[in-house]
């Protein structure tokens, strides 16, 4: 019996469940599904994005009805209702036609690829498909001379004319963007100076100004108390001296006897007289510059080209209102003999188009031209957000890990920070608009809200109360740091911070840096812009940075910390020399996550600063170089705008893909750079050279 039993036991196969094979299959398939989805997404972006700029042949389509037209095959679909049909890009919007046209497959009689057909990319009105027929030159009297006739002759002559046109364009552009823009900027500052002067002339007497003597005494007290605070070792006296120094420093700064006096009518008149003369000078120079541009433009208008649409026999027009005038040579960006191009030609055209895409400004409601300002905006906002979020997050994490007592308060704080990471980004956007743009930005522009402003006496009482609380907090933390810290110290310092903020928002001394512009109806910082967008995104990514920095700091071995303390290092020295270098790879990981999240975020940006078209880049070659108050363009928002808000969705289609590809590439590049730095740091931390 027992014998048989053993025998049977050996024969029982291991059940499938116990063998674990199913687990391998299940997890493996889940992985394959994930990888397939991600690769599919990336592949689609790469394929569609990379295909956009590839030149397709120009087809001459003859329909059953006898109608012929030139077009480029855009895409073909098998529509269950309409049957097989093809979308042709036909351009030639000047003729009053839609630039895209659906053609049913059964309608088409025959398709040819005419050698002489060219594609013209223009600065305005989209593409034009046609056959070059004449190149014309006008003399000063307006008599026309035909320089070349017929497609081949025109195309042979054209490069030389285009080169000249290009040079003229560059000259005009230089005058416009450099000289005229500078003049405009000067005129604007003159206007603001006048506004400011008028405003100050109508101001009431500014609050309680001290005489020079009293002000000097206060300034001297400030200096003396700083010096004494350094010398005196008695803690109580030192604390008092520090507070006196801070208060007298504030008084010295806000009560400057020479500033803030209203202008007398004579002073106002003299300012206005000076600005008037300056404006006259500037206007003269302005006229001179516009005359020079006009001269160049008149020269430009002498060289014309006729590119004829075979269907109507009409040529590309000079402008919408002058349909009978042929276009100027200078209106051409690029002329492509699409059906003559070999592979090399197509490749160089492809590269040239990508270069144009990344290096030039958008045209035609963003559906043509490039995305250079969009790239700049994205990079800048990401850079600023990183600069803002990493130091702040790391310092917060350091306090939580190195200084704070690990108790219930810190645990609650930690959970709260983790949860902040899950708040929808649009909420941050709304908060950013309310807090940064209207709150802080409003104060920067026009000073605190008049209904909140205290009288001078009241404000100083508030400051004295703050100083009193600060004294208590200083005393508490001085005695508390050596022994047990308690929550009251934190509360006292919190109260000091709160009173300081209240003091800023109720000060009678500050009337804003950009009051003139505000009165003019154009807020500077009191509206959405680059700075507030970056800070909003910094707030959004702060939890990620704090959590990863805290983990990295906690992962630095306690033995290293003890070794450092054992050598007589202070806490701050230990943090600086041992903890931070050790935690740096982890901190960088957090920074990478923050950057990637910030670069790809759209929802909050729509509220706090990204726009469809920003006429000016957020930086210029004049002080202060970065104009953080300006609106900017952002790749994420640009994709949304092209895809869903474009007036011509078919024309924008290709650009949606290329912009997406660019954004993905940009994020990948930023991540790769950060990962490289991290790997280098890690290697240095673990072995090898230091």
């Amino acid at each position, binding site marked *: 019996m027992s014998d048989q039993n053993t025998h049977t036991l050996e024969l029982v196969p291991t059940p499938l469940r116990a063998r674990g094979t199913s687990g391998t299959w299940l997890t493996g398939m889940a992985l394959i599904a994930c990888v397939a989805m991600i690769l599919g997404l990336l592949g689609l972006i790469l394929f569609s994005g990379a295909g956009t700029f590839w030149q397709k042949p120009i087809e001459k389509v003859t329909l059953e009805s006898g109608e012929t037209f030139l077009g480029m095959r855009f895409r073909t679909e098998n529509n269950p209702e309409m049957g097989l049909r093809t979308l042709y890009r036909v351009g030639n919007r000047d003729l009053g036609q839609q630039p895209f046209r659906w053609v049913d497959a059964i309608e088409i009689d025959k398709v040819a690829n005419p050698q002489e057909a060219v594609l013209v990319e223009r600065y305005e009105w989209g593409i034009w498909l046609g056959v070059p027929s004449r190149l014309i030159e006008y003399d000063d009297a307006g008599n026309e001379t035909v320089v070349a006739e017929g497609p081949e002759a025109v195309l042979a002559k054209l490069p030389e004319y285009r080169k000249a046109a290009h040079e003229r364009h560059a000259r005009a552009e230089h005058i416009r963007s450099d000289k005229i823009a500078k003049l405009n900027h000067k005129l604007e500052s003159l206007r603001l100076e006048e506004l400011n002067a008028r405003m100050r002339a109508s101001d009431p007497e500014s609050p309680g100004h001290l005489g020079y003597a009293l002000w000097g005494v206060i300034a001297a007290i400030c200096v003396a108390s700083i010096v004494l605070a350094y010398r005196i070792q008695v803690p109580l006296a030192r604390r008092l001296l520090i507070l006196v120094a801070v208060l007298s420093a504030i008084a010295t700064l806000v009560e400057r006897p020479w500033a803030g006096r209203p202008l007398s009518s004579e002073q106002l008149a003299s300012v206005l007289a000076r600005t008037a003369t300056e404006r006259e000078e500037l206007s003269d120079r302005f006229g001179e510059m516009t005359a020079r541009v006009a001269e160049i433009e008149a020269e430009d208008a002498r060289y014309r080209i006729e590119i004829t649409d075979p269907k109507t026999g009409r040529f590309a027009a000079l402008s919408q209102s002058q349909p009978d005038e042929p276009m100027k040579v200078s209106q051409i960006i690029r002329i492509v003999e699409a059906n003559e191009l070999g592979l090399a030609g197509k490749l160089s055209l492809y590269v040239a188009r990508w270069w144009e895409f990344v290096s030039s400004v958008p045209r035609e409601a963003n559906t043509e031209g490039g995305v250079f300002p969009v790239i700049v905006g994205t990079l800048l906002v990401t850079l600023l957000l990183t600069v803002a979020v990493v130091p702040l997050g790391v310092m917060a994490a350091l306090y939580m890990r190195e200084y704070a007592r690990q108790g219930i308060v810190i645990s609650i704080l930690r959970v709260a920070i983790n949860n902040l990471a899950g708040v929808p980004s649009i909420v941050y956007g709304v908060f950013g608009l309310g807090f940064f743009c209207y709150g802080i930005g409003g104060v920067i522009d026009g000073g605190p809200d008049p209904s909140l402003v205290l009288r001078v006496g009241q404000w100083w009482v508030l400051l004295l109360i703050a100083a009193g609380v600060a004294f208590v907090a200083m005393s508490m933390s001085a005695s508390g740091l050596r022994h047990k810290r308690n929550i009251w110290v934190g509360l006292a310092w919190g109260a000091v911070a709160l009173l300081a903020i209240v003091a800023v928002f109720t000060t009678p001394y500050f009337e804003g840096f950009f009051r003139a512009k505000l009165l003019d109806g154009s807020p500077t910082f009191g509206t959405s812009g680059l700075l507030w967008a970056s800070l909003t995104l910094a707030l959004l990514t702060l939890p990620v940075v704090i959590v990863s920095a805290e983990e990295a700091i906690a992962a630095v071995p306690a*033995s*290293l910390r003890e*070794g450092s303390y*054992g*050598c*007589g290092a*202070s806490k701050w020295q230990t943090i600086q020399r041992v903890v931070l270098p050790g935690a740096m790879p982890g901190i960088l990981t957090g920074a990478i996550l923050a950057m990637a999240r910030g670069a790809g975020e759209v929802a909050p940006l729509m509220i706090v600063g990204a726009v469809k078209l920003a006429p000016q880049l957020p930086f210029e070659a004049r002080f202060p170089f970065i104009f953080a108050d300006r609106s900017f363009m952002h790749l994420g928002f640009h994709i949304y705008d092209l895809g869903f808000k474009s007036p011509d969705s078919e024309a924008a289609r290709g650009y949606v893909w290329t912009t997406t590809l660019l954004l993905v590439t940009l994020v990948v590049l930023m991540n790769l750079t950060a990962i490289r730095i991290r790997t280098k740091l890690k290697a240095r931390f673990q072995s090898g050279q230091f």
Partner: protein
Amino acid sequence: MTTQPTRPIESTVSHAVETGGAFEAARHKELAAIESVLDISDFSLWYGDKRALYDISMSIPRGKVTALIGPSGCGKSTLLRSVNRLNDLVASVRTSGEMHLNERSIYDPGVDVIALRKRVGMVFQKSNPFPMSIFENVVYPLRIAGERKKSVLRETCERALQSAAIWDEVKDRLHDSALGLSGGQQQRLCIARAIAVEPEVLLMDEPCSALDPIATARIEELIHEISSRYTVLIVTHNMQQASRVSDFTAFMYLGRLVEYGTTKQIFQNPHLPETEQYVTGRFG
């Protein structure tokens, strides 16, 4: 010991443990002749509610090696870390009693802990070189003290490395990472770092427990060499090591100092039966 407070003195260690009281250690008469550098008087320490040290009183002789032995959890490491107040980093620690280093108080409220730690070097159980070059590791205590002169740093580095008997092995790669050294070399580097600022006392917390026998032998040799210039207080689990390297030995048990005397006497002629049982391996 000059100040002995009046308290019930338990007759045996086990009785003291049962009643939760202190124990008056057996002190050998040879201790009367020493010149002490560190005086510990009635020192007690609590981790929260748990008492870890019970009224320890002992004097550490100048220029000698003193070993602290005893079974795990007897408080020897705690006592060692109290000397440079490293226990301050633990939030729940509370102490009573006093310690004096060269007549100067360690636990007085006005003591500058950072300055104290510069006078008391420490070598840890697990070697903990910083992730920097060998040179930067050795001069770390000088750097944090604000020393900038290249010549001073270089001289100190060479002297400390020579004292720690590792100069010949690393002199050609001073600017390589310290993490590339072997375990024994790393521990000698840590010793060099600890003696770079000429401390008054050198604390060693089981410095060989993570090392192989050959590296251990070298460290022991090194302790022997530096004991002529520094006072060494060493915690060890290894009784052979205590008998080999130390001049004086203190036996601790469950937070109490049990017996303290010359190493020779403790190992060959202990006064108390518990000590004898422990050093012969029958107890603990």
